């Protein structure tokens, strides 16, 4: 921190080496109590031992902290995956300060105390490092999950020869709609289907933006020579759409997926006969 602090640095280094066992024991105690109830004290002690050794080596090498930083980053990453909060991780590092301070206070030496200020800054940096790594690790987890969600949530299923369906579940945003649109259009080309049903039963809310996305998808499918039906419109959603003044124009909308399938079958000229004497002609609205 200050020149004087730097000057008193060797005292703290010597202290860290001489009283290694005492400081380390105290550190593991403090860390274990601060780290949260679901921490395994044995595993933590092993990791802290490695970190403490790396810290000593880094001080001896004159500031080459690559190994130390690597160990701390690994600690932070694994704790991020195990669901600890960043504070719980940072506190583990900061508790070293407390453990060392107890030893410094025992000595009662003013110069060592100044050296401790320098040491305190080192620990602060290390604590911040764990915090940063923690945030990065968490962000990566979130990004991975968002990507997986995007892949999982947009299946294109074949209902009938020439009829595809896209059951949409969850909130629609621009990125998701883009994926849905591309997947559906590609599936239309791959299967040569002329009809598609977009089922929005699982979409919790439809606002102007979502409606706009749906309309774009339908128009794009039309440009390619396929006709889309939107199904699964719940009463509240119908109400919302009308209240918002969204015009679906000549796009066919149906209340349920079965109605939409019946419509698509009728359009492709398929006729279904029911079992027994009752003959069901697909093509009426009540089929």
């Amino acid at each position, binding site marked *: 921190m200050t020149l004087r602090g730097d000057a008193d640095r060797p005292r703290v280094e010597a202290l860290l080496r001489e009283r290694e066992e005492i400081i380390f024991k105290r550190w593991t105690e403090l860390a274990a109590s601060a780290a949260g109830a679901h921490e395994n004290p044995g595993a933590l002690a092993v990791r802290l031992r490695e970190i403490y050794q790396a810290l000593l080596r880094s001080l001896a090498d004159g500031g080459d902290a690559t190994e130390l930083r690597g160990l701390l980053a690994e600690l932070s990453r694994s704790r991020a995956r195990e669901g600890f909060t960043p504070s719980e991780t940072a506190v583990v590092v900061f508790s070293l300060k407390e453990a060392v301070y107890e030893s410094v206070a025992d000595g009662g030496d003013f110069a060592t105390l100044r050296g401790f200020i320098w040491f305190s800054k080192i620990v602060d940096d290390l604590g911040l490092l764990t915090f940063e790594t923690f945030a990065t690790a968490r962000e990566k987890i979130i990004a991975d999950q968002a990507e997986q969600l995007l892949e999982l949530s947009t299946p294109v299923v074949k209902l009938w020869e020439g009829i595809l369906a896209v059951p949409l579940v969850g909130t629609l945003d621009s990125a998701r709609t883009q994926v849905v649109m591309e997947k559906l259009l590609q599936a239309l080309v791959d299967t040569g289907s002329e009809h598609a049903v977009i089922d929005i039963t699982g979409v919790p809310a439809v606002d102007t933006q979502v409606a706009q996305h749906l309309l774009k998808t339908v128009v794009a499918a039309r*440009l390619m*020579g396929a006709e889309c039906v939107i199904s699964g419109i719940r009463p509240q959603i119908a109400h919302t759409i009308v209240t918002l003044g969204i015009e679906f124009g000549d796009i066919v909308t149906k209340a349920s997926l079965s109605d939409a399938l019946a419509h698509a079958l009728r359009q492709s000229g398929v006729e279904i006969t029911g079992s027994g004497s009752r003959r069901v002609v697909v093509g009426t609205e009540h089929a």
Partner: protein
Amino acid sequence: MDRVPILKLGDILIVSIQIDLQDQSVLALQEDLADAVVTHGARGVIIDITAVEIVDSFIGRMLATIASISRMLDAETIVVGMRPAVAITLVELGLSLGGVRTALNLEKGVALLDGRGAPAVRR
């Protein structure tokens, strides 16, 4: 300048666009096509754009213009084989190709003109 060939299949004309369209070739195509429709007395024109990967508003307008010319000469225009990316681009550009019928591929386009296939797109 590359000219786009016009193929005759019965009373249907088939135009398959395989090259990067320049302004000049588009104008030439429109003239050639109008001549061909009159000469052969065609009742349908199929424009195959399977090979077209990049579109802009100019191509979009070209398709609409060809459709208008053909309709004037009593021939129906069907655009076939549009790629998903192309369709998305046209929608983003706000071009919905009003008055042009579309089909997924050449086969379905021919069937549409013959009245055999179910009407895929009705406006």
